[in-house]
């Protein structure tokens, strides 16, 4: 995947997620609101995969951008009467990008645990600000009354979540196209280089640090858009979009799906959120036991996440079939 020796054409199986999503729209109309949530998280996870899976930046603070995007859209919609959804998205993207570039420039010189803690500190500080600035954000009560005008003046966000689902799906599709393009480009190859061997990348003349800031900002922007989508779908923003918990959840989802594979960001949230939703309905007090077991099992038996496991099976299968072919000859 990605790099100078890879084929950038879209393979048939890459269309699978989109086919499934469209099928879900028609076949499971009652689950669209969960569906929209899942789509938002996929976009969010994609943005994380870009920096974690490809550039090797580990973070527990990605919710800072998600949350900032969510609040930017929310505040515009609730307090300033900016109700056009695209304007809200744009503003959220800008705000998140700004935060991304300014924090990235400070923290990206560090690595590993230190970086992890710095990112965590940033999102915690943003969370605290959101809590304190209750006149703007509603504080712990959350920001309600977010107005979102119908999309293109035509499609109103309905109770069934149809508009929300399609809207998020389109946004995700665009985001995916963009990231995919990026990953197959020389820039993507360069990111892989940084992840594999940073010292070497310095030694071939790459301004590693600035490149990291750039990709961090891109990722932040995307996370901001995802946050804004969540606000628009819910017409509400709560403090839970910030802080350790959403970042941790996201990280878990991505690792669960498989890091650095692009589609891990699809599989992870789908499995995690649906498992959570299902288990929580069955065992509201103990559902996380099931999630815990899922995580442990995945770690023990599927290094590289669920997609890693699929890969292994696929390889075993094709090896067997090719050896069968060989022996047939």
């Amino acid at each position, binding site marked *: 995947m990605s790099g100078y020796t890879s084929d950038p054409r879209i393979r048939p199986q890459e269309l699978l997620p989109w086919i499934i999503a469209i099928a879900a729209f028609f076949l499971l109309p*009652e*689950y669209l*609101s*969960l569906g929209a*949530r899942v789509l938002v998280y996929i976009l969010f996870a994609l943005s994380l995969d870009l920096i974690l899976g490809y550039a090797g930046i580990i973070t527990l603070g990605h919710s800072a951008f998600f949350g900032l995007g969510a609040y930017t859209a929310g505040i515009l919609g609730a307090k300033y009467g900016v109700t056009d959804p695209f304007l809200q998205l744009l503003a959220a993207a800008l705000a998140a990008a700004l935060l991304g570039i300014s924090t990235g420039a400070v923290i990206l010189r560090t690595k590993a645990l230190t970086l992890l803690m710095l990112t965590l500190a940033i999102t915690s500080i943003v969370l*605290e600000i959101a*809590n*304190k600035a*209750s006149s703007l954000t*509603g*504080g*712990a*009560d*959350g920001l*309600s009354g977010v107005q979102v005008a119908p999309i293109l003046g035509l499609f109103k966000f309905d*109770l*069934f*979540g149809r508009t929300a689902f399609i809207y998020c799906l389109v946004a995700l599709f665009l985001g995916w196209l963009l990231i995919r393009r990026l990953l197959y480009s020389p820039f993507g190859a360069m990111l892989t280089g940084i992840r594999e061997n940073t010292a070497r990348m310095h030694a071939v003349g790459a301004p590693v640090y600035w490149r990291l800031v750039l990709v961090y900002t891109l990722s932040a922007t995307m996370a901001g858009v995802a946050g804004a989508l*969540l606000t628009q*779908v*819910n*017409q*509400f*923003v*709560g*403090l*839970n*979009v910030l802080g350790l918990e959403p970042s941790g959840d996201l990280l878990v989802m991505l690792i669960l799906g498989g890091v650095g594979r692009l589609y891990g960001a699809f599989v992870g949230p789908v499995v995690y959120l649906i498992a959570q939703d299902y288990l*929580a*309905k069955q065992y*509201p*007090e103990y*559902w*996380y036991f099931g999630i815990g077991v899922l995580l442990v099992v995945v770690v023990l038996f599927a290094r590289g996440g669920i997609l890693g496991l699929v890969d292994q099976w696929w390889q075993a299968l094709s090896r067997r079939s090719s050896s069968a072919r060989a022996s047939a000859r």
Partner: protein
Amino acid sequence: KIGFITSYSGLNGNLGPYMERAVRLYIKEHQKELPPGVKIELITRDDTGPNPDKARQLAQELVVRDKVNLLAGVVFTPNALAIAPIATEAKVPFVIMNAGTAVITTRSPYIVRTSFTLWQSSYPLGEWAAKKFKTAYTLVSDFGPGHDSEEAFGKAFTAGGGKIVGAVRAPLQNPDWAAYMQRVKDAKPDCLMVFIPAGKTATAVMKNFADLGLKDAGIKLIGPGDITTDEELPNMGEVALGVITVHHYSAAATRPANKQFVADWKKEFGQNETPNFLSVGSWDGTALIFEMIKQQKGKLDAERSIEIAKQWRFDNSPRGPISIDPETRDIIQPEYLREVKKEGGHLANVEIETLGTAVKDPWKELQKKK
């Protein structure tokens, strides 16, 4: 069909069961009063804590997919606020059984609250304290309800001639209270008003209060009932003795309705279990729902249900006679002054005085005056 949303997991996941148990207990005991052929189906959902988007998704599904006639539950204010538009849009009555921020009921005409508002306890507390003490210090958790409590107490206390010598807001997740206690100690107030969310943090506060010798320094610890919830008292131990709180409910109250309630609770869930104010809010909320069902013979209409709620009086609540304010759809209830005492070898919130028998939400009253 009732869609019941509360918090079973996350840091405050212990709260949900108190609510659900009360609802189930009420249904179990009163099932036979329902009109023939009517059965209540309770669909429980976990919103995982203060998590409005999850709550909203759940409410939406309950309405759209499960086609519930009523929504109920909710521990946290943001979740209630996020659900409010859905109640409005889908025209589904929404009975709030805990979330206590004053504004909630204004957000949808379909919301009825059977729990409390923080103003209801903190304001009378302030009035009462003003008569006993000259100076007070307030310590609250830095979030919506904390701010409410601080403001309500402060307003009442100063209106009654007292003086707030200091106010401090602590982070919601705060493991160590020593610094705050030292600060309070140095300010030497007559009393310290504390509000923090119900649970074990309260225990930590109590222990710190005692460890740093504030009690010995003659400072009285007071607060809304959240700081000495009945189930936490055993964990606090001796240090909680003498703490004065104002609240609408105490498991130790001697009203027959309450004695019955507590006894049934213990029988159902075990001798070591005690109901708390979340249970009572939910119990009474369920009573209200039963009333709606009975009056409409099982066919629920949203507007009618709300009308019924507005007229509702319930004299037999474990907390005493309560009713719903027809103007605000908020609860009207008695407030009690309690002190932590030892009763039969156990600590209990003993009601020592009734501060008001029909307290409306003071915040809404003040808003009206403006």
